[in-house]
Each structure stands twice: as structure tokens, then as C-alpha cells.
């Protein structure tokens, strides 16, 4: 059953058409790697799923509910209710620099969801343990490496118990030797059946962890498929050309 259904998404920045009729579906427990050249619209597509961008046309349905229908958005209350089921991890982490690692994790459940304090504490400890940063709980983000920051950002997103996690090039701002620790965490989430959409340049990751690879080029959805098939027999000429450049 599709958890996200996107149809005919259109978006322009001025005269530049960044999304041209993009349609696809994501099923529960899918791990989708979105690949494609820079400027192909991958990030814009991802950001529009969680309403960081507003599209000009097309529809997005999450759990069957319309985030946008034929380019028309519902009220802000409805939008918040729908996007609350998703979490997002950014290329540049976007941790809150004035809060410690623990506070970064706990602030949203505390002030947005008004959860019980003991419960928040327990979950933040668990999640920091899970991403291997329990000993950094009281550190400020400025004291962390890029890889550690990104792991905190993932834990922060998980604190809100999202059904779907979106990643916008989660390793692109990292030194190569630090990408492994972040990809490891994402891999673990995949094993736990988290539904994820990951915009990435890491072909190894797409091949190993994703169960769907989706290729975008020039604002268009070109093709998608399971990684073995996708990498072995790309159907489309543009996909072949891209893979030849990056592999």
C-alpha cells in the first residue's frame, strides 16, 4: 500500500522549471534512493513532500490525505497535521547551536507534542545510545564532528516518531571518512523497516541499502526500480549516461 503518492508535480522558480510532471509512489517500508545530476530537482521534490517548498501544480498524498491537491493547499492546520508524520534530515544538519545535543533532541517533543518529561528523557537516552552518541549528550553541536552532528540530527528527527523519514543529501557535507558512520545509522533504520526517501550521491549506498532507486534528470522522473535491476539494466538512455559518469 502506497504511503506517499505523488502525481504530476510541477514547480518553477521564476522562468526555471525545476519539476515537470513528477509522479511516483512510495510503499510502506520502502527505502527509496533518489539519484540524479545536480539541479535535477531531487531536493526540491523532497522538500515539497514536507512543505518546505510549495508546488505550482500536481498532488501529494500522504497516507491517503492530500497535502496538496492539483496545486491547491489545505489550511495550515491540516498541512501541519500531515507533515507531522514525516521527519527530515538536512545536508547541513541544521542543529540548534544554542542547545546541547540532548536539548536538541528533547525540545520538539516537549514544546510541540507536550509529552511527559520522563518519557522524553528515556527516549532521548535510547536514541543517543542508538546513534552511538550517549557520551555527547551534554555537548554543544559546535563540539561535534560533521558525522556526529548528522547522527544527532537523525536522532532528533526520530524523537518525533515519524512514519517517514526524508534525507536531503545527508552525507554531502561530510568528509569522506565520516560518511560511513551516518550511512550505518540509515542502514540500521532500514533494517528496522523505517520508510525512507534519501536523496543521495552515494551510489554504493543506493545499491546496498535502498530497495528502490529513482532517477531524476532535468526536473523529470525518468525511471525507478530495484537496485540490482536498475544498475545492471537501466532502461533509459539518460540513466545510462548518468551512471556511466558516476560509476
Amino acid at each position, binding site marked *: 500500500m502506497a504511503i506517499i503518492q505523488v502525481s504530476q508535480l510541477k514547480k518553477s522558480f521564476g522562468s526555471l522549471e525545476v519539476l515537470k510532471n513528477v509522479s511516483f509512489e512510495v510503499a510502506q517500508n520502502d527505502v527509496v534512493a533518489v539519484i540524479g545530476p545536480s539541479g535535477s530537482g531531487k531536493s526540491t521534490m523532497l522538500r515539497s513532500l*514536507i*512543505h*518546505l517548498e510549495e508546488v505550482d501544480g500536481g498532488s501529494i498524498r500522504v497516507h491517503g490525505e492530500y497535502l496538496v491537491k492539483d496545486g491547491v493547499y489545505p489550511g495550515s492546520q491540516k498541512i*501541519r497535521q500531515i*507533515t*507531522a508524520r*514525516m*521527519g*527530515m534530515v*538536512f545536508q*547541513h544538519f*541544521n*542543529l*540548534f*547551536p*544554542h542547545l546541547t545535543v540532548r536539548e536538541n533532541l528533547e*525540545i*520538539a517533543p516537549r*514544546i*510541540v*507534542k507536550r509529552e511527559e518529561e520522563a518519557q522524553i528523557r528515556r527516549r532521548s537516552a535510547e536514541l543517543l545510545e542508538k546513534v552511538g552518541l550517549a557520551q555527547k549528550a551534554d555537548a*554543544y553541536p*559546535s*563540539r561535534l564532528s560533521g558525522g556526529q552532528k548528522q547522527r544527532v540530527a537523525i536522532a*532528533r*528527527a526520530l524523537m*518525533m516518531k515519524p512514519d517517514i523519514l526524508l534525507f536531503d543529501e545527508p552525507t554531502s557535507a561530510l568528509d569522506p571518512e565520516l560518511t560511513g558512520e551516518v550511512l550505518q545509522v540509515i542502514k540500521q533504520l532500514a533494517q528496522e523497516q523505517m520508510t525512507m526517501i534519501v536523496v543521495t550521491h552515494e551510489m554504493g549506498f543506493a545499491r546496498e541499502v535502498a530497495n528502490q532507486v529513482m532517477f531524476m534528470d532535468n526536473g523529470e522522473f525518468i525511471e525507478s526500480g530495484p537496485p540490482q535491476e536498475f544498475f545492471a539494466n537501466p532502461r533509459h538512455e539518460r540513466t545510462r549516461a548518468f551512471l556511466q559518469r558516476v560509476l
Partner: protein
Amino acid sequence: MSLDYLITITIPMLEGAQMTILLFLIAIVLSIPLGFLITLMANSSIKGVAWFAHTYIYVMRGTPLLLQLLFICFGLPLLPVVGEYLVMERFTSACVGFTLNYAAYFAEIFRGGLLSIDKGQYEAAQVLGFSKWQTYRKIILPQMFRVALPAVANESITLVKDTALLYAVAVPELLHFAQTAVNRDFTIVPFFIAGVIYLLMTLILTVFFKKLEKRLRFE
């Protein structure tokens, strides 16, 4: 020059310094929130509101504080019809003048602080479900204040020294008593004492803000 003499001239100056400190405290406590309000207005999407805030800042920064003080103290009561309701105690009108003037400077300082905050901070707050108000209160303001702190410290020290303008609207303060002693006794010692008292006040502020900056370093 006897110690007795020094004490005799210093005591009225210290009493005058109380006026200085009182004005400083009133102006700082009122102008920082007012300045922040003007920052928000300047960033408003409602055109008229933003225009008002920018004009306010322009006028307040573009004319001398001394002129503004004289205007409020002696000018407002001369206005036709409403003038008679605008007569204030001189100290009160000085407080109004300082607050309105410093609010404009603080507004610009805070606006600079807001501009320095990465848009990723707003986006992170949005995807975590923060309302606009929560985003400002919990994420943006603390960071803005941290960025603005050195400039706020600078402005506060300027305010201490600007209180000497009370002299112009004939409210007796530190400098007034120094000047009186100089004229009366034909000595420049009172000026030195006044200088030392100002230095002590600014020293306290400097240390206070240094400590605050250290506490808000987020490391």
C-alpha cells in the same frame, strides 16, 4: 588639597550619579524590548507597518539626541491644542527621549542579529512542527541575542556616557555637580573625579557583558 575637600566635592557628584544610573536603568529596560518590537515591525510583511518602523529608525538615528531631548522637554508643550497635556517633568521627558532614541539603535542591532541566522534554522524548526511563535522564542531569539550581544554592550556603554546630556535639560546629574565645583573652586580636580566615576560605571558594564558573553558561548 585635603582629603576633606575631596570628600566634600565627591559626595554631591555621587548623588548626581544616582540620577545617571536611574536614567540608564530606565532607558535600557524600556528601549531593549521596544527596539525588538521595532525590529519585528521592520520585518513585517504588512507594508505600512514596515514603512513606519524604517521611518522611525531613520528619524531617530538621523537627528541628534540632544535635539530630540530639547524637543520633548521644551518643544512638545508648545504644540497647539495638545501641548498643555504634554508637559512632563524634565527627568521624565529625558527618560522618554532616551528610550525612544536608543530603541532605534537596538532595533538595528537586532535586525542585524536576525539576518545572521541561517534559514536552515527556520526549516529545522518547521519540520519538527514548531509554530512561528515557538520558532522565534525558542530558536531564533536566543541566537539573535547572542549575535547582538557585543553591539548591545557597546550601545549600553554609550548610553552611560550620553546620560551627561541631562545637563542640557537642567536635570542635575554627575557632570552638573562636577561643573559647579569647578566653577566655584577654580580647580579641575572635580573633572577628574567625574571621569573616574564614569569609568567605574562603564567598567561594571564591561565586566557584566563579558561574563554574559562567556556564558552564552554555546561550547
